[in-house]
């Protein structure tokens, strides 16, 4: 998966050095994580073993990792596409959540009246559209008013979470839900089919295919080329007569649509209903996955699997040691610090 163009000019000693730096970054982050675990009075070796076993220990564990990696992958692509044009999309959190909202809304509108295939396609389109609108809003504010998209995408995450909570507690509340509020369960025609094991659903394959398509679009089409030119040097893009506004807005809208689809896949493939806190943390983790992959769609597959595995590992850690589920966020952050500060040091961005 080593990017052929990025690596072709690199000499053998550099490549060895790069492997060494990446290994050091991973080992170093595990070591520091172990120190934190020890500070909480747990055995670091047991903790790391619990994480690895629950993430990749058997077929079910691998399946669970693939399931968690799926919204991460689509969320990472939502970061990678605008990043090619030099834009930051930190709104994956909100775009994922609203994608789930759009999909549930469409399913409720259809009310089981359409065949499964049609229902799922329409739900995917609705989820993508909701994500696209959310990201597109930030893009339009940027182009029309010059409002920084880092800030708007970040703050809109909180608004999206509030919308989900409102829907679940008020208009879409399942009358049967008592303490915990959630929406009515999706009907059978609105659920993605399971393809292997107990839980691995069709969305896993869809996300992988989309990553390949996005890689092709970015690497092989004129649009992808223009995005890269714009990201490298906005002035050059302007002089070459590219429609800059259309390009950047398009990149954000496509990004939002990808994250929205990720939300649809999560709700139709895993959750089956909307609940407060659905996909919380996935947008930020996906942002980190895209940086880990240096915004390359194919490397993003590996990055999402790694960070998805760590999320699954968090459940194992909680069961084995009683440490909080959020503890593995520390490991994710340490890996990113190692990679951003050391492994990727002086590599081309």
């Amino acid at each position, binding site marked *: 998966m080593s990017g052929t163009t990025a690596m072709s000019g690199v000499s053998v000693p550099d490549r060895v050095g790069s492997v060494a730096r990446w290994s050091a970054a991973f080992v170093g982050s595990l070591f520091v994580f172990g120190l*934190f675990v020890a*500070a*909480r009075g747990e055995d670091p070796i047991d903790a790391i073993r619990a994480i690895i076993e629950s993430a990749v220990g058997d077929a079910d564990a691998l399946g669970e990792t693939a399931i968690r990696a799926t919204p991460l992958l689509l969320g990472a692509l939502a970061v990678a596409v605008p990043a090619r044009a030099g834009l*930051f999309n*930190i709104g994956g959190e909100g775009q994922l959540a609203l994608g789930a909202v759009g999909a549930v809304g469409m399913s409720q509108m259809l009310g089981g009246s359409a065949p499964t295939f049609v229902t799922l396609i329409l739900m995917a389109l609705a989820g993508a559209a909701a994500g696209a609108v959310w990201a597109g809003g930030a893009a339009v*504010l940027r182009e029309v*008013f*010059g*409002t*920084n998209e*880092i*800030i*708007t995408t*970040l*703050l*809109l*995450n*909180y*608004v999206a979470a*509030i*919308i989900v*909570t*409102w829907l679940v*507690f*008020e208009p879409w509340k399942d009358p049967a839900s008592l303490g915990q509020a959630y929406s009515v369960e999706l009907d059978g025609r609105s659920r993605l089919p399971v393809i292997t094991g107990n839980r691995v659903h069709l969305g896993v394959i869809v996300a992988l295919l989309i990553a390949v398509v996005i890689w092709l679009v970015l690497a092989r089409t004129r649009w992808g080329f223009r995005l890269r030119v714009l990201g490298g040097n906005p002035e050059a893009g302007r002089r070459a007569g590219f429609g800059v506004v259309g390009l950047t807005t398009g990149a954000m809208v496509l990004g939002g649509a990808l994250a929205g689809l990720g939300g649809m896949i999560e709700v139709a493939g895993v959750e089956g209903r909307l609940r407060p806190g659905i996909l919380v*943390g996935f947008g*930020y*983790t996906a*942002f*980190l996955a895209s*940086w880990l992959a240096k915004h390359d769609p194919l490397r993003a597959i590996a990055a999402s699997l790694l960070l998805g595995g760590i999320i699954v590992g968090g459940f194992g850690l909680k069961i084995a040691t009683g*440490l*909080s*589920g*959020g*503890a*593995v*966020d*520390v*490991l*994710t*952050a*340490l890996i*990113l*610090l190692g990679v*951003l*500060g*050391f492994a*990727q*040091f002086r590599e081309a*961005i």
Partner: protein
Amino acid sequence: MLLESVLTGAVRGGTSILFPTIGEVIAERSGVVNLGTEGCMLTGALTAYAVGIETGSAWLGVLAGVAAGGALAALHAFMVITRKSNQIATGLVITFLALGLTSLFGQDYVGQGVNALEPVSIPGLADLPFFGPVLFDHDVLTYASFAAGPLAWWVLFRTRIGMTVRAAGERPEVLEAFGTSPALVRYGAVIVGGMLAGLGGAQLSTAFTLNWSENMTVGRGFVAVALVIFAAWDPRKAMAGAYLFSGSISLQLQLQARGSGISRYLLEAVPYLAVIAVLVLLSSRRRHAGPESLSRVI
């Protein structure tokens, strides 16, 4: 009185946003954006809370919160200045790290009683109608925050240290030519910024919410970064921004309590939308207000 309740809430709730906003103004004036401000706040909130409980002294807690915010910011500074990693990505990693660490170490403190920073009424003034409750019946950190903006402005714009910080953000090469290391100046500014974010977090948990829960800052640190643009990188204007945000929180709480016909869940979006709205209105005027070398980063 609606106005009195809203303004009292705005002032008390605004302190935790005001300190981080001023801190981020200082960091950005030196040329470094720190999206880890959210993380520094969160870490400051937990550290102050936990140390306050363990030592029995709220003030030791606040000090520890300040130190924790500074330590996390030092990590950001090391990453972006020494290791030259991307500022935006690194800031988010820092926040993510703080989310994880506070979840890991905060577990046992959820639901524990806090050693609170009690409000101190100013004798005489606190009994004034309207102004008493709004301005003179707060915790000590809130009183300190009234002076923080003007003080930070004075340091940044009227002292040699401030000039050096601004030079690091505008023309680092000039600073270099005069024999001062811009990197060192930036380290200092980012760490001070993180300490102020930690202070804001400490006020939030020990004087405002009086409890600890995971991710309790819910974006306040990110809002602080947004308000830096609103304030045009001027610490004096940070106050208006902080009170705009906390005032809209306090207004929506009052509307919830009085029944406005709007869903109380939707009302919670008002503060975030208010910040986005003012930024949109001001963006065209703010585009060139920032430090010059900052635009090379963003």
